[in-house]
């Protein structure tokens, strides 16, 4: 796609790239329509909130070192875990990979110049900032103590300042919808000549599936949060048990969004992993169609399982049965991906770099976290585990173990593409090992705490739980230290990293066929796709020719 670029020469830093062209200066960034700049701005913003959420997490862990008050009172603690959840979920995990990496990469992987609606894309970023500002205002002006789940009637009667946080999440939903809409239309209409649906990179498939969930589930959450805000502000509620309302209905609505939202977070992680596993084993994906379609399967079936959050809430046994059995099916799609990724390694040529290390972590956490998820959906076991630390550990395995591993893998894998420079590989591996081990030490004790019966959101706890809590906090410190190391070396690499060249990993992904950092128009010449996205089997050393005589228009 960039035939002018000589292959396997000394790496070059593209002199004219999206960072300095068409204009320089922060003003040009704030008004940019370039999907790459918007993606980078999303990455920076979400990373800041990741740090904030991480700080809250550390404070929570420190507080739990002793059975009684350690560094704060119960009210502060309740606010902290609420804010930790809200920040991590709505401000970091939901937008991080789709809006950040997705924005940067999706058009490039499709061979497009931009997303379909660049203005909407910028609007999405500002809507995100607005939502974040409103939510932050709520946090500063008192914060909420409802947990990120906002269960009524507690959330409608709490004296804390929950309304701005609800509204913040409501506004953030619009950002999510706009991004999803943009990606779907982009995928449908802006594929490069020659790129049929079955030649799309798996990253695109997963992001596409994510977008479907975003546009279909988010409006329901928006409405639900608005209803809670109305009920809190004016008593104008439809969940109020005193007026015949059903608080369990809120839980239905909430999880109708929030269970698929788990896949809004995990599918992009899987998107990243599908790319990383091919690039670092230098091998064609095993079962392209299976992996691609399983993304859509997750998106679809993910909507049918929300009731497994309600097994103990008074939901009927009939619904519990329906949701229980449907939940078994959604895990299958994840299993398909896991098996296919593992099979991809077979007869590969594996370079064990930092992104691959995160893939290893991801694989372990996803298998264990996913299977404990199925275990939780096993109805009678859920009755015991529900709302205990087992659930906390399970979803952190998926969320932290899955999403953050993938986020870090993506950060390392595409760091050369985004910045044009390399990160220090040695430090990368050290940090990866620390993060993966620290993570295990943090959350495996929490599984055991859940088995012992420690409920979540507990400020005081009986003394018999202390040893495991201390172990968990110790693990969290290692995890935090690892993350700080990553932050430090990545920031330093921006300035001092070795120049990467257009394709340091010898990856076959289409985004690597253009200089690093990419030019504002992504490709120097309009690419014509002649091969699949993950093909490593031909004998051509690096860049197979990618021109075809007759450009075929994708519709």
């Amino acid at each position, binding site marked *: 796609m960039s035939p002018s670029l000589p292959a396997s020469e000394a790496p070059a830093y593209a002199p004219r790239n999206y960072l300095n062209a068409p204009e320089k200066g922060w003003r040009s960034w704030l008004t940019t329509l370039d999907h790459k700049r918007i993606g980078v701005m999303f990455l920076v913003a979400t990373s800041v909130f990741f740090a904030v959420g991480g700080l809250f997490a550390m404070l929570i862990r420190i507080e739990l070192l002793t059975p009684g008050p350690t560094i704060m009172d119960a009210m502060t603690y309740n606010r902290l875990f609420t804010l930790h959840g809200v920040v991590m979920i709505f401000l970091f995990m939901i937008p991080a990979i789709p809006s950040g990496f997705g924005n940067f990469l999706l058009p490039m992987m499709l061979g497009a110049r931009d997303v379909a609606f660049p203005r909407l894309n910028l609007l999405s970023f500002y809507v995100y900032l607005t939502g974040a500002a409103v939510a932050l205002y709520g946090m500063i002006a008192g914060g909420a103590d409802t947990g990120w789940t906002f269960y009524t009637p507690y959330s409608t009667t709490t004296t804390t300042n929950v309304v701005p946080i609800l509204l913040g999440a409501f506004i953030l939903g619009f950002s999510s919808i706009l991004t999803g809409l943009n990606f779907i239309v982009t995928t449908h209409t802006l594929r490069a000549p020659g790129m049929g649906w079955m030649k799309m990179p798996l990253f695109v498939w997963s992001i596409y599936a994510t977008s479907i969930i975003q546009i279909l589930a988010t409006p329901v959450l928006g409405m639900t949060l608005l209803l809670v805000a109305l009920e809190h502000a004016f008593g104008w509620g439809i969940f109020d048990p005193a007026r015949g309302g059903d608080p369990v209905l809120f839980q239905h609505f909430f999880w109708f969004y929030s269970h698929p939202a788990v896949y809004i977070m995990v599918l992009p992680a899987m998107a990243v992993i599908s790319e990383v596993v091919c690039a670092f084993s230098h091998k064609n994906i095993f079962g392209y169609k299976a992996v691609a379609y399983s993304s859509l399967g997750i998106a679809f079936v993910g909507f049918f399982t929300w009731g497994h959050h309600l097994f103990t809430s*008074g939901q009927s046994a009939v619904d519990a049965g329906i949701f229980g059995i449907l939940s078994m099916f959604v895990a299958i799609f994840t299993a398909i991906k896991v098996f296919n990724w593992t099979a991809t390694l077979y007869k590969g040529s594996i370079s064990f770099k930092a992104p691959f290390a995160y893939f290893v972590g991801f694989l372990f956490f996803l298998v264990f976290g996913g299977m404990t998820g199925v275990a939780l959906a096993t109805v009678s076991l859920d009755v015991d585990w529900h709302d205990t630390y087992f659930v906390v550990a399970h979803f952190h395995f998926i969320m932290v173990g899955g999403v953050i591993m993938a986020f870090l893998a993506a950060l390392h894998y595409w760091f050369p593409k985004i910045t044009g420079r390399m990160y220090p590989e040695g430090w990368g591996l050290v940090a990866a090992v620390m993060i993966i081990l620290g993570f295990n030490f943090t959350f495996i004790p929490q599984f055991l705490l859940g088995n012992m019966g420690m409920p979540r959101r507990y400020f005081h706890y009986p003394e018999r739980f202390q040893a495991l809590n201390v172990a968990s906090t110790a693990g969290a410190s290692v995890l935090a230290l690892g993350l700080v190391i990553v932050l430090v070396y990545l920031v330093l690499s921006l300035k001092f990293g070795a120049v990467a060249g257009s394709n340091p990993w010898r990856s076959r992904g289409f985004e690597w066929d253009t200089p690093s950092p990419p030019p504002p128009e992504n490709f120097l010449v309009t690419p014509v796709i002649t091969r699949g996205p993950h093909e490593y089997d031909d004998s051509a050393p690096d860049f197979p020719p990618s021109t075809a005589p007759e450009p075929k228009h994708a519709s």
Partner: protein
Amino acid sequence: MADPAAHKNEHSHRKRYLAVWVALAVLTVLTYTLARIHLPGAWAVTVALLIAVTKGTLVALFFMHLWDQTGANRLVFATSLVFVALLIGLVIADNATRFPLANPPGSLGALPAGGADRDLPEAAAETEGP
């Protein structure tokens, strides 16, 4: 895409709009009249909803041109309707089959006040229906 089809059917389109409009108006009058004469029990709901679905289908197919849209657009709309049905269906299924006292008191799902008996679950399972 709609354009080639639109060119071909230019004249029929106007007539089509008119016909659909008349049909919608007639159905509106019909459903209003039927509501006034108070059909017995579940029929009122069924008929009213059937008429609404018919009207909605007319609007979607002809005013909104789903009739001659590409697959993706139809799929988008159909998918959203699937999820509408999903949410409504499973939520009602829950309340209809719950332990009756877990429904709001005074509601159809719960027994009338003053009768919380041991045999509730079974008795309710027999009397309840969506």
